[in-house]
Structures are given as structure tokens and as C-alpha cells.
């Protein structure tokens, strides 16, 4: 016999009350009871095996007797064996008795002393109570009786661990450690991409610091953990408490364990999602088993069980029977979307009106319909859907390839078949196709639905609903059920439920990091489609990438997902590499190789880029927005180009808009697109290149309405274009240049006004009439570019000469200019009004022209060096002959 537990105390230390019963932990755990328990279990197993063997032997004896004495002699011998004392009769009686024992023991082994409370009837947040008033005897339940053998083994191992270290008490830490090798907990670690080695040292140190003493006994925290694990299992409607609940609850109750896992980048949300992943897989398996049993009773043809239906040839020719597909296991199982399914069923049950599911493409409208098909197979639906079939009409098959009247005939056929059959629920996906094709088809449908001839569940997108349905009679015959994009947590769980299929198809294994990043990053960077579809797509591609790179059983990590998304969007997402780290830290000098002077501007821009790359910036605004003020030709555009080249990978990542071209009110439409017309120049460019630098030149010249438009862009990082698409600006740097206040800047610089004072006056007075204060406040930085000094211009001249040399180098010709020539060029190329802008023209006229002439005259050949002297005179130094 297993040693009996201590009586359950009437006033326990902790427990939970469910339906008037107190569920508490009351399990004896010490060396003696564990040894006895183990021995008793062995004896039980041995006795059961003995009885089973005896039953088998008695059966053999009986069979042998029948074979030798009864079968050869016929019925008379049989009657004699039964009704007169015989060894055959004895062996049969013994076999029967032993079998009865076996049956009893089998039933008792699988039977639980107590059953889990119904999780669906328990509120999700019921609390563990500490101070109990005395609980009557029959109303106390030991939760240990509801622990799975694996979970009990976990608790026993926790005791042994504490005991082996001589600890005075068993704490959640012991339960956490012991759970790591039981049940599905190793899978949780695998999905998190963690190895025990990564935390083992810290755990050992912690174990050595736990107080020692006689015992161990359960600490109050550990007891609460054991009850919380039970509570967790009840809320999730589990049939018993398993190690995974112990693992999760011991994590939640031990701050050290939380810190430990946080160090290896696992926080509570991630852990909870992985635990849920394991449960989803289990739940799907259980649900599938139940569903398969139910599917055995569902007819698969057009005929229903009551045989009231008729054949539906017109419908069959343009449709797919979803209930038949569901019976065949060809439809995906629905995860989440409980609220939407409940609303859908409520609407169906309520008025019998047809339903229109409105949601963006990819959010799961089809999955919801598949879920309904599954419920119909299980007949777990309102009465009006029972013993019916769900048939999806392929609208393109109805309307394509025929003229309007033929399409009408087909639709009439479909509706007639549905009406006369009486057991059909029609599904029309993307119903806007039907409405857009012609008003006659829509009228036919409205008529049929008004007369309750058919029941339709249709789907459409919010845009199509706004454009096509809202003001059309068709909206009156449908009840709208909105299917919004799931939040990231729900999307992660949906993706987790789909990953199993991808793993099977590609022969790879996903980590949680990969799943999480597919959802979070696609939510952040991919705006053309919606969750969960876009994340599932990314997961499929990442699986393929991992398989190609590392072969079978490759682990798909977050890096694989980042690579796929980076390739799709052009946005760098991978962790900052050592090379890039150096590049970011020396960004100022890289930019200064192209921009001379303007220290403040270069520093501000470099800091913004570093913040962006280390994810310290606000995620719902552009990377940075700058207003560059200053006279012409001081390097505002040059700095923008340098940023585009050094951070975005090239000058072509710069989207440049000369705002002097957008001076009238109508030009707003050129930027964001006209309703029903062409798409906007800016919105389309950013939609195609979300990771870019937008340069808005001469911003003060744009129409005030356009300036207002940018208030939203600067603030929220998004803009809706003329067709209702939300364009994402959160991965853009926006640089606005303006000459407003240039005269004051030049004057202030010449008078030596300090920079801060100059900026304050600019913002408060000089820009007052040009920009509204709310616009100025939205810039991350207003940077004043100082007029160039002659020394600056000389350095710029050197840069430009270097560019000429670079161009000639491609032809195998060297080029250099003497210092005197550079000084002369810089003097000629500087204009106090236009800064260094005339310099380019001067270099073209005096340098490029002279070189071009020399090249045409054939005076220069490969390996020669051209030397520029003052006055535009060039000298050619002949290279060495080969």
C-alpha cells in the first residue's frame, strides 16, 4: 500500500476555492515516505504483472485442454467439461477470475481520485487565498491528486535536490530546476534556443547560497507555486497538472529565476508565449482527435442526414464544399478569433440575416470561415446551421468568360439551387467582385437575400466596403462583422500554430525568437499586408533560407527572419556588427570627408543615426527630422547626400523634392495623389523605398496646406494616400532645407553673435512669419549652417579636385593641382551670396575644359599625370613607358 498522506488540514496555509471546495497541497514528502511510495509502486506493478501473466497462463491451459479433450470429441465433451468438474472448466474459471482482477486494476490505474474542476466555468483571475477559515472535511481536496505522474516526479526531484544540498526548505527555485528535465519543459528551452549550460553556473551559485538546515519542508512560496500550477492548469482546462505549469509558475514566483532568464533575453511575455506554443500544439492534437470522431457522422455529399436536400448541379459547378473539405481534414484549424467567431454565431442565431465579414486582406477571414466549417462538422453551431453544408462560391467562375446575362443566369442557378436545397450556407469571398461587375448581379443577390432564398457569409476589405457597399442597397441585407488585424500577441500564437506545418514541409525547426521576430518586425516594417499572413509568409521564406544554408533539421533563428525582411524591405535589421559599430562611431569623420565645416549639423545628424541604429529612437516617428537653415551653397544639400551615402547605402536612397514646385493648393495631390487619379509622387516613392532620406528643398516656398500635411508625418510617421493606403515614414530621415532667415544669419555671423542667441532669434522672430510654431516644434533639430569661410571654401576646392582626379583615375590618368591653383580656384568660386555654389561651375570651366581639350588633342595618354597650375594652365608629366 502507498503510505497514506497526512490528513488535509482544515485551515490550510494557502489554497484556492472553487465551487465551495478548497484545493490545497497536502502531500507527504520525506525520505521514508518517498522510499515507501517507490516500493509500493514496484509491488503494485509486480502484482499487476503477476496477475496478467497468470491470466495468460490460465488461458493457455484452458486452450490446451479444449484442443486436447473437447474439440476432438464435439459438443458432448464440451457439455461435460462445463457441467461436470473438469480441468478445462477449472482453467476457464481461473482465467475469468484473473481477467476480472486485470480489468479492475487497469480501471483503477487510469482512474483519478478526484477530477479537475471545469476550467470553462472558472474566472481567469481567481486568487490564491492565504487565510482560510476552517473548511469542512468533505470540501477539502489535495491538489497533488490532480498532478500528472511527471509533475509528481518533478516535485519529488525538487525535494531530492533540496535534500542533497542540505537546504532547510524547498523553494520555487528547486521546483524550477527539477522541472527542466520533465515533460515538455526541455522543448520550451529548445524553442527559446537556450542551453542549460548558459544558466547552470548562476544556478549552482544560487543553490550554494540557500540556507541549510534540517528538513527540507515546503516553503510558503513553494506551496503557493504548487497551488498556482494547479490553478494555471484549471484556467487552461487541462486534464491534469503537468511539469510545464510547475516550470512557469516557479519562474513567476522567483525573482532570481526571472533575472536569470532575463539575462539570456527571456522575459515573461516571451516565456508565456512559448509555454502557450506547447499548449497550442497539444490542444490542436486533442481538438483534431475529437474532430475526427465527430467528422465520421457528417455527410460529405450534397445530401444532408435528414435527406431533405436536393441535387445542386448549378451550384456544384462553380463552388467548393467547405464542410466536405473539413471532413477530409483539408482546412486549417482556427486559432484565436474567439470574439469574432462568437459575434458571427450570435449574428447568425439572432436575426438570420446574411453576414459580411469586413477585414483587411490576410487577417484571417478565410480562417474564420474554415473554423465555422469545423464547427458545422461537429454540429456545434446554432440550430439554423445544423445538418447543413458550407459551400464557397467561386465568384470568378460565376462572372468570368461570359457576358452579363450569362453571369446572371449562373448566379440565379446558384441561388435557386441553394434555396431549393435548403441545406446550404453560401460563402462568397471578396464579394466586391460581384458588385463591381454590374449592378444587376448585386440586385439579384439583394433580392434573393431579402426573400431569404439563401443565406450568405461574404467577405470584403474595409476599403472595398467603404467604396462599394456603404451607400449601396446591398449593405442593407448584410449584418457586418468586423475582423480586425490581430494584435502582436495573438498573431504570435496564430503563427505558432502554423509553424508546425512549415517545419514539417521544410524539415527545419523554429525557435521562438524566429516566430516573434517574424511578427514584430513584419508588423513594424511591412505595411502593404497584414498580420498574421505577412508573418506566416516571412516564416516560410526564413525556413527555406535556413534549409538551403544549413540543410535538414536546420534551426531557424531570428537572424534568418531578419535577413529575409531586410532583403524584402531594404532596411537593415540585423544586430549591429563590429564593422558597422566602428562605422557608426566614426560617422562624423566619414561625413566630413564630404562636407566641410558645419560641425553642429554633422554632429546632430550623426547622433540621430546612431540612436536609430541602436533602437533608442521612438518607433512611431521618422528616424529624425531636421530643419537646415542657412544661406545658399553652405553645404545643406551636400550633408543630406553624405548621410544618404553613409547610412542608406548610396545617394540614390535620397528622395529629393524641390518644394518650390509645390506652391499652389492643388499640388498637394501631386505629393499624395488625387482621389481616383494617379498616385502621389512622394507617397508612392516612400511606399516603394520605406528606408530612405527625404530631402525637402526650399520648404518655405511650399503651399501652407502642404506644410500642414507634414505636421502629421513629423508627429506620427505616417500619411494616408489618396487611395487610403497608410504610407510609413518611420524608417525615413526627413531633412528640410530653407533659406528663410539667411540674411539675418549672414549679418549675425559677421557681427559675431553667439550661436545660441542666433538660433533663438531665428526661431522666435525671423522664422515666425514663414513657419507655424507647431511645425517648428516638431523638428528634432533646427540646425543653422554658418556661411563658409575662405578657408572652408579652399578645403571644398580640394575635395572637388579630388573628385576630378577620381574620374580621371578610371582612365588610368593621374591628376593633381598645385596649392596656388587651388587657392586661385577657391577665390574665384566663392560668392558671399551663393556660398561655394559657383565653385562647381568654375572647376568645370577652368579645369574640366582644359583636361578635355588635352585629351582630344591626344597630348595625354595612360599613366601620364596632369598637373593644374594657376590660370588654368595644365602641364603633363609623361608616365614611364612599359
Amino acid at each position, binding site marked *: 500500500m502507498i503510505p497514506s498522506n497526512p490528513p488535509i488540514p482544515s485551515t490550510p496555509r494557502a489554497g484556492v476555492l472553487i465551487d465551495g471546495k478548497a484545493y490545497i497541497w497536502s502531500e507527504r514528502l520525506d525520505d521514508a515516505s518517498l522510499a515507501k511510495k517507490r516500493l509500493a509502486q514496484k509491488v503494485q506493478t509486480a*502484482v499487476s504483472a503477476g496477475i496478467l501473466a497468470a491470466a495468460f497462463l490460465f488461458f493457455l491451459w484452458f486452450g490446451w485442454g479444449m484442443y486436447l479433450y473437447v474439440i476432438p470429441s464435439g459438443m458432448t465433451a464440451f457439455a461435460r467439461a462445463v457441467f461436470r*468438474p473438469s480441468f478445462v472448466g477449472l482453467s476457464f*474459471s481461473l482465467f475469468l*477470475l484473473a481477467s476480472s482482477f486485470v480489468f479492475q486494476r487497469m480501471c483503477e490505474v487510469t482512474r483519478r481520485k478526484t477530477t479537475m474542476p471545469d476550467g470553462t466555468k472558472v474566472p481567469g483571475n481567481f486568487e490564491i487565498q492565504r487565510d482560510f477559515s476552517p473548511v469542512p472535511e468533505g470540501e477539502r481536496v489535495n491538489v497533488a491528486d490532480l498532478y500528472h505522474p511527471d509533475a509528481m516526479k518533478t516535485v519529488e526531484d525538487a525535494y531530492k535536490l533540496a535534500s542533497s544540498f542540505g537546504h532547510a526548505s524547498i523553494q520555487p527555485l528547486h521546483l524550477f530546476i527539477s522541472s527542466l528535465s520533465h515533460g515538455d519543459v526541455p522543448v520550451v528551452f529548445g524553442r527559446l534556443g537556450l542551453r542549460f549550460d548558459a544558466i547552470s553556473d548562476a544556478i549552482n551559485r544560487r543553490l550554494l547560497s540557500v540556507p541549510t538546515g534540517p528538513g527540507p519542508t515546503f516553503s510558503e512560496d513553494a506551496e503557493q507555486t504548487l497551488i498556482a500550477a494547479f490553478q494555471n492548469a484549471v484556467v487552461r482546462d487541462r486534464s491534469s497538472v503537468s511539469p510545464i505549469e510547475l516550470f512557469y509558475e516557479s519562474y513567476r514566483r522567483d525573482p532570481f529565476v526571472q533575472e536569470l532568464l532575463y539575462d539570456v533575453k527571456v522575459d515573461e511575455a516571451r516565456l508565456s508565449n512559448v509555454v502557450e506554443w506547447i499548449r497550442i500544439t497539444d490542444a490542436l492534437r486533442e481538438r483534431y482527435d475529437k474532430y475526427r470522431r465527430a467528422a465520421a457522422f457528417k455527410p460529405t455529399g450534397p445530401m444532408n442526414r435528414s*435527406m431533405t*436536400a436536393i441535387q445542386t448541379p448549378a451550384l456544384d459547378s462553380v463552388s467548393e464544399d467547405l464542410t466536405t473539405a473539413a471532413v477530409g481534414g483539408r482546412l486549417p484549424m482556427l486559432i484565436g478569433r474567439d470574439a469574432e467567431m462568437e459575434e458571427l454565431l450570435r449574428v447568425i442565431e439572432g436575426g438570420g440575416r446574411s453576414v459580411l465579414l469586413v477585414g483587411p486582406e490576410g487577417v484571417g477571414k478565410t480562417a474564420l470561415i474554415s473554423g465555422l466549417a469545423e464547427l458545422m462538422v461537429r454540429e456545434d453551431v446554432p440550430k439554423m446551421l445544423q*445538418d447543413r453544408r458550407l459551400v464557397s462560391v467561386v465568384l470568378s467562375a460565376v462572372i468570368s468568360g461570359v457576358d452579363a446575362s450569362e453571369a446572371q443566369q449562373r448566379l440565379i442557378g446558384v441561388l435557386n439551387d441553394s434555396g431549393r436545397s435548403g441545406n446550404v450556407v453560401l460563402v462568397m469571398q471578396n464579394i466586391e467582385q460581384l458588385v463591381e461587375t454590374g449592378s444587376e448581379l448585386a440586385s439579384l443577390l439583394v433580392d434573393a437575400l431579402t426573400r431569404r432564398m439563401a443565406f450568405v457569409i461574404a467577405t470584403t476589405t474595409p476599403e472595398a466596403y467603404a467604396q462599394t457597399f456603404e451607400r449601396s442597397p446591398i449593405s442593407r441585407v448584410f449584418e457586418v462583422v468586423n475582423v480586425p488585424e490581430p494584435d502582436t500577441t495573438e498573431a504570435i500564437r496564430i503563427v505558432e500554430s502554423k509553424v508546425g506545418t512549415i517545419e514539417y514541409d521544410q524539415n527545419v525547426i523554429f525557435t521562438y525568437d524566429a516566430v516573434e521576430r517574424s511578427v514584430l518586425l513584419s508588423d513594424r516594417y511591412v505595411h502593404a499586408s497584414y498580420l498574421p499572413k505577412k508573418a506566416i509568409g516571412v516564416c516560410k521564406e526564413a525556413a527555406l533560407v535556413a534549409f538551403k544554408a544549413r540543410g535538414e533539421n536546420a534551426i531557424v533563428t531570428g537572424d534568418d527572419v531578419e535577413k529575409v525582411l531586410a532583403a524584402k524591405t531594404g532596411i537593415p535589421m540585423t544586430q549591429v556588427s563590429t564593422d558597422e559599430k566602428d562605422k557608426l562611431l566614426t560617422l562624423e569623420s566619414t561625413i566630413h570627408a564630404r562636407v566641410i565645416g558645419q560641425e553642429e549639423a554633422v554632429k546632430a545628424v550623426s547622433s540621430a543615426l546612431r540612436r536609430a541604429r541602436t533602437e533608442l529612437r521612438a518607433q512611431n516617428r521618422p528616424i529624425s527630422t531636421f530643419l537646415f537653415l542657412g544661406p545658399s551653397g553652405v553645404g545643406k544639400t551636400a550633408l543630406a547626400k553624405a548621410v544618404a551615402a553613409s547610412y542608406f547605402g548610396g545617394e540614390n536612397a535620397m528622395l529629393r523634392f524641390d518644394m518650390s514646385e509645390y506652391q499652389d493648393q492643388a499640388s498637394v495631390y501631386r505629393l499624395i495623389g488625387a482621389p481616383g487619379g494617379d498616385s502621389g509622387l512622394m507617397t508612392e516613392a516612400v511606399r516603394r523605398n520605406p528606408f530612405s532620406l527625404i530631402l525637402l528643398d526650399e520648404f518655405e516656398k511650399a503651399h501652407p496646406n502642404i506644410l500642414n500635411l507634414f505636421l502629421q508625418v513629423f508627429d506620427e510617421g505616417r500619411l494616408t494616400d489618396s487611395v487610403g493606403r497608410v504610407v510609413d515614414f518611420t524608417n525615413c530621415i526627413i531633412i528640410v532645407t530653407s533659406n528663410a532667415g539667411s540674411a539675418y544669419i549672414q549679418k549675425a555671423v559677421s557681427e559675431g553673435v553667439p550661436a545660441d542667441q542666433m538660433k533663438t532669434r531665428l526661431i522666435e522672430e525671423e522664422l515666425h512669419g514663414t513657419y507655424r510654431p507647431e511645425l517648428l516644434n516638431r523638428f528634432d533639430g533646427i540646425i543653422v549652417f554658418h556661411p563658409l569661410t575662405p578657408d572652408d571654401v579652399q578645403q571644398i576646392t580640394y575635395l572637388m579636385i579630388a573628385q576630378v582626379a577620381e574620374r580621371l583615375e578610371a582612365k588610368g590618368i593621374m591628376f593633381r593641382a598645385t596649392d596656388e591653383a587651388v587657392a586661385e580656384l577657391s577665390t574665384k568660386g566663392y560668392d558671399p551670396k551663393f556660398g561655394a555654389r559657383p565653385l562647381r561651375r568654375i572647376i568645370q570651366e577652368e579645369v574640366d575644359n582644359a583636361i578635355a581639350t588635352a585629351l582630344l588633342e591626344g597630348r595625354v595618354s595612360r599613366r601620364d599625370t596632369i598637373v593644374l597650375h594657376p590660370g588654368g594652365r595644365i602641364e603633363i608629366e609623361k608616365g614611364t613607358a612599359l
Partner: protein
Amino acid sequence: MVLRLVLTELFDGIVSLPAWWYTRGLAIMTAWFQKFVRDASERFSLGVWVRNLFVPMYGDTEWSGRAISFGVRFAMIFVRGGAVAVWSSAAFVGLAVYVLALPMAILGLLYHAVGLIVF
């Protein structure tokens, strides 16, 4: 110690078996029997046919169609009811065997053992 545990286990099993057989064991078998009959009824759609006795088959709502439907459904209810009855009978035989198995085993054991020893 081990021997004592084995003997206790066996003794407890022998003593508790008859009581268990006709209490918890019988409850398990009765639940199995009920499920078996319910599944049979579901498999042969008996309830659906009874509920739709007056509903015309194949959407034929003519007077003649309704009459034929009623006749066919009436006959089918008999046929399907018969099938459910056969299934249920088989399950009932199983239940009866269970009820009789333990006394048969004990009485048989006593009868044959004593008979063989005495005669």
C-alpha cells in the same frame, strides 16, 4: 516487508473485487453501454429521421411526394431502429457478460476445484 506488501496488495484486491465489481466497475460498464447505444443511434441518424418524419424528402413538396416521403421515412425508422436495436443488443450482451462474469468465475472455480478434489 516486500512479501507483506505483496500479500496485502493481493488480499486487499481479492477482498475488494466483488464490491468494486458491482459498484465502480458496473458504473464504468454502464457508461460504456450508454455511449455505445448513443453512438449507434447517432450513426444510424435515428433521431434525425424521427424528427423529420413529416418533412418531404428531396425537397418534393407535392402531395404525392409528401405521402411517399412519409411512407419511406416510416419504413426507414423501422429499419434504422432495428439496426440500432441490434447494436444495442450486442452491447447489452456485453454488459450482461460483465455482470455474470465474476459469480461465474467464483462459482466455477469452487465447483470444478471441489469436484476434482472430491471425485
